[in-house]
Structure formats: structure tokens, C-alpha cells
């Protein structure tokens, strides 16, 4: 049984101009120990799909799916009380803007402790020791002292490490990373990607990487889903996708990479749209 299985997921938003279809019948499956990359441009619905899974979309969104199961647990019918037991513990998520994702009014130690208290029932000394342990595992120097630091006292890369620490604090079975390195410098991006892959391999959790960066896909993924305007264009293992892309949109995306440029001009997606008809 796959860890997460979603069939025919549709998400619609009510807008002033009528319903807007953000996602139109997409399937996702992730196994434990697997890294799935969902890649697409803005508006492709890549984040919406995972926010729907987490139950984080606003009330204006209508979510329908034929199947939406996490370890056999039906996420569609889950009460919010039961959902809170799963979200943040078995499934957790990290976001693009690390500094904005942390509460500026509390120390990182407090925020990490909160997670442990809610889901694992750890308190006081025990919680503190565990927090130090997790911060060490994500490579924060001097974790004992950094506990009492506020988010603004840390760099973007360090905040992202804290976010990762918070996400893995309860040893989740599935980690969803939504553009985890987009706001960071290349050298820091490398460190964070290495850390994520390392943690994933050590713990055997499933990892979903949402990204628009083909380089990040190439460096981390086992399997890739390419999305465009709310539909799935192609799904393949990472090597097949880069070596032999089937879908015209995937081909367009890959040839728009500056490093694949041949000749003077970069081909753009619209050049392919006319020829490929998507």
C-alpha cells in the first residue's frame, strides 16, 4: 500500500468571476522512502494539491477526490480533531519563506517545544533535551544556546533548518517541502537539499519536493510529476524524464534551461505550445 494515494483530485476556488479550476483531476502516489518531485510554473497547481492534502486551503476552495488516503486513513472524511493528530505529526510540511513561517514573538526553542508537547506529550527537561537533539541533527551550531534565539537573530538558511527541525521533530512518515530553497543562496541551497535528502534516507520517510527548479529536481528526486495549468503533463522516474521526455511541455521546459541552450536564442514554452498543442 502506498503511503499517500490520491485519485482524481480536483480543486475549485470561488471567485468574483465564478469558479476557478486550480486543479483538474490529478493523481498522486508516494511510497515510504521515496522522493517525489512535483514541478511546474506558477499557477500549475503544484502547491494547491499539497495544501489540499494537508487541509490548509481556505473555505472558498472546493476539494473533490475519488480517493485521498494516507496509510489507509481517508483524509476526506477526517474530522478536524482527528486531522490535527495526523498533520504535524505523521505528515508535516515546510514552506518557502523560512523567516515568515516562524513566529517572530517566540524563541525557536519554544516553538519547537510546542510541537513536541502537542504531539508527543514531552515536557520540561525531556522536551528541552529532545529539542537540542533535533537542532543538532539539522546542523545548527551551539544548539543549547540557539534555543533561546528569536527568528530575527538567525539567518535565512538557519531559519530553514529550524523549520526542517520542527517538521521532523515527531518523526513524520511523509514530509512535504514546498519550494524549500527558493529564497536561499546557491551555497545554502546545496546544504539544505543535502540535509533533506540525508534525513530522508536515514529515516526512510516519504518526501515530496514541490519546486519550479529543474536543477533541484535533478539533484533530489526519484520520481517526477510535471504539471501545467492544473493538469498532469507527465509522470516518470527522474532519469527517464531528463533523458527522454515524452510530453511536449516537459520538452519545452527542459529546453528553456539556459544550460541546454543551443544557438543564440532560448526556445520558449510558447514556441512549443504552438507545435505541441497544449
Amino acid at each position: 500500500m502506498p503511503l499517500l494515494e490520491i485519485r482524481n483530485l480536483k480543486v475549485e476556488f470561488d471567485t468574483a468571476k465564478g469558479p476557478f479550476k486550480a486543479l483538474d483531476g490529478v493523481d498522486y502516489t508516494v511510497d515510504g522512502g521515496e522522493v517525489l518531485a512535483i514541478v511546474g510554473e506558477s499557477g500549475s497547481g503544484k502547491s494547491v494539491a499539497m495544501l489540499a492534502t494537508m487541509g490548509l486551503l481556505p473555505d472558498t476552495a472546493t476539494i473533490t477526490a475519488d480517493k485521498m488516503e494516507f496509510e489507509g486513513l481517508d483524509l476526506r472524511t477526517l474530522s478536524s480533531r482527528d486531522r490535527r493528530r495526523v498533520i504535524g505529526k505523521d505528515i508535516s510540511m515546510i514552506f518557502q519563506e523560512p523567516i515568515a513561517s516562524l513566529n517572530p514573538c517566540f524563541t525557536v526553542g519554544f516553538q519547537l517545544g510546542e510541537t513536541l508537547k502537542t504531539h508527543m506529550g514531552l515536557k520540561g527537561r525531556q522536551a528541552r533535551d529532545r529539542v537540542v537533539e533535533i537542532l543538532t541533527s539539522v546542523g545548527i551550531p551551539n544548539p543549547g544556546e540557539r534555543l533561546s534565539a528569536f527568528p530575527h537573530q538567525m539567518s535565512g538558511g538557519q531559519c530553514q533548518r529550524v523549520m526542517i527541525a520542527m517538521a521532523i521533530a515527531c518523526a513524520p512518515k511523509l514530509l512535504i517541502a514546498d519550494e524549500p530553497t527558493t529564497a536561499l543562496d546557491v551555497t545554502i541551497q546545496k546544504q539544505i537539499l543535502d540535509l533533506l535528502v540525508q534525513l530522508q534516507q536515514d529515516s526512510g520517510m516519504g518526501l515530496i519536493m514541490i519546486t519550479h527548479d529543474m536543477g533541484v529536481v535533478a539533484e533530489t528526486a526519484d520520481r517526477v510529476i510535471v504539471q501545467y495549468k492544473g493538469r498532469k503533463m507527465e509522470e516518470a522516474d527522474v532519469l527517464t524524464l531528463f533523458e527522454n521526455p515524452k510530453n511536449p511541455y516537459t520538452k519545452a521546459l527542459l529546453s528553456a534551461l539556459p544550460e541546454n541552450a543551443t544557438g543564440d536564442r532560448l526556445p520558449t514554452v510558447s514556441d512549443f505550445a504552438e507545435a505541441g498543442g497544449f
Partner: protein
Amino acid sequence: MAGDVILKVRDLYRTYDIKGGMFKKASTLTAVKGVSLDVERGSTLAVVGESGCGKSTLARMLTMIDAQTSGLIEIDGLPIDISQTGISKEMRQKVQIVFQNPYGSLNPRQKIGHVLEEPLLLNTDMPSAERRDLALQMLEKVGLQPEHYGRYPHMFSGGQRQRIAIARAIMMKPKLLVLDEPVSALDLSVQAQILNLLADLQEEMGLTYVFISHDLSVVRYIADKVMVMYFGEVVEYGTRDEVFENPQHDYTKTLFAATPRADVDSIRKRLAAKAA
């Protein structure tokens, strides 16, 4: 056109004073330390480095937003030192800038036509009909339509806004265009369109670019010369091929190693290492 240097910078420094507080002594921060460079007419210099390395401070000095502390800047034979001489209309005409975030760099309450005409209004005595004609021509040149003239920025996508920002920058027919991360906020396919537009404009108008970026694959595609900055200093400066094929400084090597590779061989290598 070797030897035709349009931008000459020698030993440029910029320091900022940091105010002291009750428990902190006042100190100075040197954001740019002794940068020297030459850019030839019609070529592209890429400046690479991570946040805080001084690349945007350099851009601010080249575009006369900020004054240098010491050192020489010469644009098209004209020495620039705004703390001493102020800025003349002639100086403004030589250099323009395009910023990273096309959502932040356009006034939301200003129509596109007005955005494009404003540099002409401020710096020339052109009559309004002529300004309008020029603005319409410019819209077409950057791949937009005449009907976009009366629209507001929120009606455009990120890529279209960046086209507008570029159009505004070249309204004055500058010699030198400073591009501060012009494509980092854009999607991959839009990025390709903007890079193509920049290449076309360079050819058509003989523009010289100083292209600031942290994305090495873009730099490799667009640059003639590359300069790598680290903590305010230039650690590597040379032609694109020299820098990419034979990086000298450790930081440049680290930077190259950290850049994700999207080619089949590196994926194969990674998968093999994982299986082992």
C-alpha cells in the same frame, strides 16, 4: 570593438557608518572593497555573488542612486561622483536600471503609458504627443501591444511587468543598462523570453549590460565577462570561458559545486551513489 571601454571603474570603495547604541560602539561596514573593472561597448558583464556580497551596492553606485566613498567611475568618458558634483540630466541619460521584483518596481497607481513617459517628462522638453508616440513604439519593441498603454500594473503578469520595467529603462536610450537580478523572480519559460528580449535589444540598440545574478546557468548563457564577488571583494574576474572552465578562487569553486546540475550524467551519478 576591442578597447572601446564604456564603463571604467577603478578602486571603488563604499563604506557605511553603523550607529552605535548604548551597548554598542559605532563602526563602519565596507560593502564594496576596491573594485576595478572595464566593460566594453555592446558587451555584457555578469556580477555574481551571494546576498550581502556587495553586488547590489555596486549597482547602486553605477546607477547614481548612491555615492561612492572613494574611487573612480567613468561612464562613456564622463566621470561620476555624485557626492561632489551632483547629477546632471546628461549623466542620467547614460545609465538606467532594471530591478529584480517587477511587482515592487512599478507604481500601482500609475498607468503604463505614464510609467514610460515619465523619464522623458523629467529629463527632456519633448511635447506630449511625441512622448506618447515614443512610448507606443517602445511597448511594441518589448513585445507588448498599444492597447496596454492605458492599463495599470496589476493587470499584467510578472513577465509582462518585467518587459515594462525594461521598456522604461531604455526610454532614455541609455548607453549602459544595469540589470539587478532581472529574471530571478520569473518562471523558467518567462525567464527564457526575457533573456531573448534582452539579447535582441542589445543587438538592436548597441546596449551594454551589467547583469547582476546569482544564477550561474543564466550567467553562463548571457555573459561575455564574469566577475565574482565575495564579502565586497572581487575574487574572480575574467572572460566567461576563463572563469567557468578554470576557476581560480576557492569561493568560485564552491559556488560552481553548489549549483544544481540538470544533466543526465549527473543524475545517473547521483542515483548510482544512492544505490551503493
